[in-house]
């Protein structure tokens, strides 16, 4: 009993505790509403089911949120990801639609490479504004957030470009070894980012810059290069997400593709426990956050509530999560709950354990 009581704060205090609780509750609610929710079946060697759908649909958000995690870890923010999604999707679809044979794999690959290159360029633009010119990230990326939509529409000439390309469709809805292709791509990019940041020293250096920029400079870290790099990575992730989103519907709409995705991505990162002030980032947390948001959206669809009304729930989640994480709010709670057992923060606990 006593061990349980002493362990409990360690569990509830973990940064992923509340997000996971909400995720489980959502899944439970869905299952109650529709018992078949949890079932996964194998048809023609492919997995189907609501859970698989949620995973597949959350793939683009996971990608964008991964890039956003790195940007936020440096103490920045990238508002332009939605526009980058739209531009890269538009460029890819435009190129494919101009091909004589839209099903040619070579054409599709060229299209992807072209669009990816454009996304990288946009990332360099953001990174240059922030790291070289020194404009506040929120303002610097606002420029591309506004202008990028226009660029995307310029590419599509204001039309919705429809493509009829099987290889391209695969990115969104296809399967590979039984799993939706999008999930595999998301998984691959996640692994890549994880390796890039955790197998090299990049992650630590990003965290050092975000945690204390001046101390990092005095330790010889070239903060500018790192900052530029994270905006490029963010744009690259958004670019791939753009392929998925447009491939999902086999069409590119410069106006609607990736709308609000920057907000969802920021939300996912924050839910995952990464502080908007920069410093430590948690890729795993970000993915839980993205899944939570997608599950919420899907549940709302499934319960045939208007998708826009899902925003109401989202608003509640944003505020609750931010309040829980806000030091000022925690302090207030603690003062009010001046009960015999004051809540213990993980840091305090560690400190107590150390001398032993």
């Amino acid at each position, binding site marked *: 009993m006593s061990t349980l009581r002493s362990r409990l704060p360690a569990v509830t205090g973990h940064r992923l505790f509340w997000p996971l609780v909400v995720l489980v509750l959502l899944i439970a609610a869905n299952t109650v509403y529709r018992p078949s929710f949890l079932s996964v079946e194998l048809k023609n060697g492919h997995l189907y089911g609501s859970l698989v759908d949620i995973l597949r649909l959350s793939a683009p958000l996971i990608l964008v949120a991964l890039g956003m995690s790195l940007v936020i870890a440096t103490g920045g923010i990238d508002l332009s990801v939605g526009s980058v999604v739209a531009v890269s999707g538009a460029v890819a679809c435009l190129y494919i639609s101009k091909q004589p044979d839209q099903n040619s794999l070579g054409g599709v690959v060229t299209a992807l490479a072209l669009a990816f290159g454009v996304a990288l360029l946009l990332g360099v633009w953001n990174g240059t504004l922030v790291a070289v010119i020194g404009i506040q990230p929120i303002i610097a990326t606002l420029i591309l957030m506004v202008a990028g939509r226009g660029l995307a529409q310029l590419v599509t000439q204001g039309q919705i470009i429809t493509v009829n390309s099987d290889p391209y469709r695969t990115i969104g809805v296809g399967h590979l070894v039984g799993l939706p292709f999008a999930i595999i791509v998301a998984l691959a990019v996640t692994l890549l980012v994880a390796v890039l940041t955790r*197998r*090299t*020293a*990049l992650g*630590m*250096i990003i*965290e*050092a810059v975000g*945690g*204390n920029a*001046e*101390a*990092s*400079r*005095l*330790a*010889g*870290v*070239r903060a500018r290069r*790192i900052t530029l790099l994270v905006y490029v990575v963010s744009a690259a992730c958004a670019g791939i997400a753009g392929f998925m989103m447009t491939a999902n519907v086999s069409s590119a709409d410069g106006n609607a593709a990736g709308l609000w995705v920057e907000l969802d991505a920021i939300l996912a990162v924050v839910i995952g426990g990464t502080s908007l002030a920069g*410093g*430590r980032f948690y890729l795993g947390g970000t993915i839980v956050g993205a899944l939570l948001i997608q599950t919420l959206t899907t549940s709302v669809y499934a319960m045939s509530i208007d998708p826009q009304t899902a925003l109401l729930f989202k608003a509640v989640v944003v505020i609750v999560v931010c309040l829980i994480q806000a030091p000022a709010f925690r302090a207030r709670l603690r003062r009010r709950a001046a009960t015999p057992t004051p809540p213990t923060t993980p*840091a305090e606990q*560690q*400190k107590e354990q*150390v*001398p032993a």
Partner: protein
Amino acid sequence: MSQRHPVLTMTAISKIFPGVRALDGVDFRLFPGEVHALMGENGAGKSTLIKVLTGVYGTDAGTVTLDGARVSFTGPMQATAAGVSTVYQEVNLLPNLSVAENIFIGREPRRLGVVDWRAMRRRATELLARIDLHIDVTELLGSYSLAVQQMVAIARAVDVRARVLILDEPTSSLDADEVAQLLRIMRQLRDDGIAILFVTHFLDQVYGIADRITVLRNGRLVGEWPTAELPQLALVEKMIGKELDALESIDADAGNDPEAVAAGPPLVTAEGLGRTGSVAPFSLTIHQGEVVGLAGLLGSGRTEVARLFFGADRADQGQLTVDGTPTTIRNPVAAIDRNIAFCSENRRTEGLVGELTVRENIILAMQAARGWLRPVPRRRQDELVQRWIEALSIRPANPDLPVRNLSGGNQQKVLLARWLITEPRLLILDEPTRGIDIGAKTEIQRLVVKLADGGMAVLFISAELEEVLRLSHRVAVMRDRQMVTQLTNDDTLDADRVMNAIASGGHEEGAPA
């Protein structure tokens, strides 16, 4: 003067922070119409005393009386309302508003509830004319020099009927003419009967204007003297103190004779190196295996010298030579490339990344030098981190603890370890022993001696003269942002001579008083 009553009396003030007794039974009094200098080194308790007075901190013991009535302010706003105004070094005004508004915001003259701009301008002009400042009050405050801004801040403070004016290092960033003008204004206000509490590190200014001096050291009151009765050398002695040396003696001179070390090959030579507004051009050579101490009071330019060597600030004049090759060190990366390392005095803001672990903080500089694509292999990390945790006895010996959870002394050792693993040839240590316990202090001093014996050059900065003398082969003396002299640490050099050099600005050599 003796007939008058003090406008402000602080009696037996104590203030305890976790682990530190910041103020210990300090008395302080301030008479109307006097300029009273509050002196002391880092950690003496000056700023704590001011913060207690203005209500930023509460007291743990003691009383504050203003005009005979006991007061206890809850914050600077309340203190200002009661007539105790503070003007800080970094002017706490609004650069984006006009001069006139900065004087009157929050209490603008109004007509029918509407801000009366014309009256505000007129009154601001009049007010500034009284302190002989004739400027366009409609211009933005930010378009004027810091000196003018400071004077505007004083004008605002005076206009809210301040009887006690606290000037906290107002002259730190001003040039000579500006200081002269500020001192003139202070004299004028004094003659109007305002009591001025003046904190500064410039001895000339103290002797130029202060009527009385109160000295604090290590949170205790050393004493209060009329300026005329306290010669400069005595003041420096009182501020720095001659600590009863609780440390074991460290045999610094045994290994290397200062003359022998200085005859060796020079590692780094600065010629006329300087930075406008920060430190006057100076020349200094540091040899291999030599410990050069920088002595001087707080704010004398010690840290600024260190920052120029490391490229933390860019020098705008002079030449730096490393290993006989002239070089420019534009940034820390360039300095690290040349095997120069720098432990800042501000561990928290300029040294460690609090969120990161001990391990990450230790390898940060090495990793930054290698580039992120070539991570230090985990095994090598373990080896290095473990070795230095043991060598410096960092406690707790857990490399995966966030560094912010460590005590000050252990944080300092982590910072040292970060640079030692890069195997620097010149190690710059800025106040490495400040705010840490005596055991850690001895360990760090021993380490410095050992490193120098091994051939490393060390630039050692400390407010404690005893420490500088114990470790250094040579002592460069700083005063008022200038390097005034360099003294070889032979048998004849003692604390008195160094203090004399600080007090006299290098024209010592005469017999000390």
